[in-house]
């Protein structure tokens, strides 16, 4: 197994909508910087996709990491930056690719 796929479902928590546009933008920039750190150590962001029409969440975001520990550290950095305080989420991991 040479790759860990990380699947992240998310939707804003209710109090996210009380923030000003400026504060939301600043927080998003902070989380983007955290994601860039993951890319710098070997992760690849496949992308984010809209899923509200067929799921409990608003978006699904998919990443590829070199191993499970790297996926774990990516998430820990986001939570240290407060991401989980503003967004509800559910995460999955998968090993592969399966031949």
């Amino acid at each position, binding site marked *: *197994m040479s790759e860990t796929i*990380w699947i992240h479902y998310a939707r804003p*928590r*209710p*109090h996210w909508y009380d923030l000003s546009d400026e504060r939301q933008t600043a927080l998003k920039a902070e989380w983007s910087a955290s994601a860039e750190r993951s890319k710098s150590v070997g992760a690849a962001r496949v992308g984010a996709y809209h899923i509200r029409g067929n799921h409990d969440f608003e978006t699904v975001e998919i990443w590829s990491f070199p*191993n*499970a*520990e790297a*996926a*774990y*550290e990516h*998430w*820990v*950095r986001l*939570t*240290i930056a407060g991401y*989980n*305080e*503003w967004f*509800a*989420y*559910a*995460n*999955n*991991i998968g*090993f592969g690719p399966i031949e």
Partner: protein
Amino acid sequence: MSLIPGATQVFSVDQLSTGCAVIFLAKRVPASPKVFGEAQRLAIGQVLAELADEGWQLSVRAMFDPSVAEPMVFDTGFAHNIDLAGVFEAPSVTAALEGTVRLEAAGWNRRFDTEWLIGPRELSTVKGIGDPVDRPWGFVAFWEWNDARTAASPEERRRNDADCDIAFQADLDANINMTGRHRTDWMHGWQHLSIWEATSPELIDHAMYEHERVLDFRFTTSRHYVGRRRPLADFLATN
């Protein structure tokens, strides 16, 4: 490995352990002996023996008494839509994930429909206060810090944590063993796991009243499983 803070009066951050919980919530699948037979049972036994050699603990019991070697789970079928809930502890996240794949490949997937969760340990085990007793009942608790908690001020959270510690201290005074806390949020919707060992389901139910009284569930949304400890071998038997 990075962990989040969360120590309280009752629970301390486990700085030493690199343990990683492997949680399995499983429902038995009706299958003919051709699908699951002695070959699969023996293969799973072989994988379990290898995992033990590699430093795994194969029961909640072993988290409190490492000399316990027999793989054990909690029999939950009487009260839940799963037949068993089990928790092992692996040496690392990768070892944990690879262990699930090895078990499934050995034939586990022919016997059980399983939800696997993986959670690095954050907080240490805490033993109940009182005479040594057998605690054959397990309480498996998953929870998330909900929207109400994330919207609360730091002071409100601190006050709620302190109030919850009153309930946790009462649990310890009732001679309940607690496994501390494992972190599952990186790969699941549930954020945390804790498992208790208790003398009876009635004691667990009684403890919940105190957790309700201190408003534990104001800031957490949870799922609880109750089951009686049984050897995993009972669920793998082919006769």
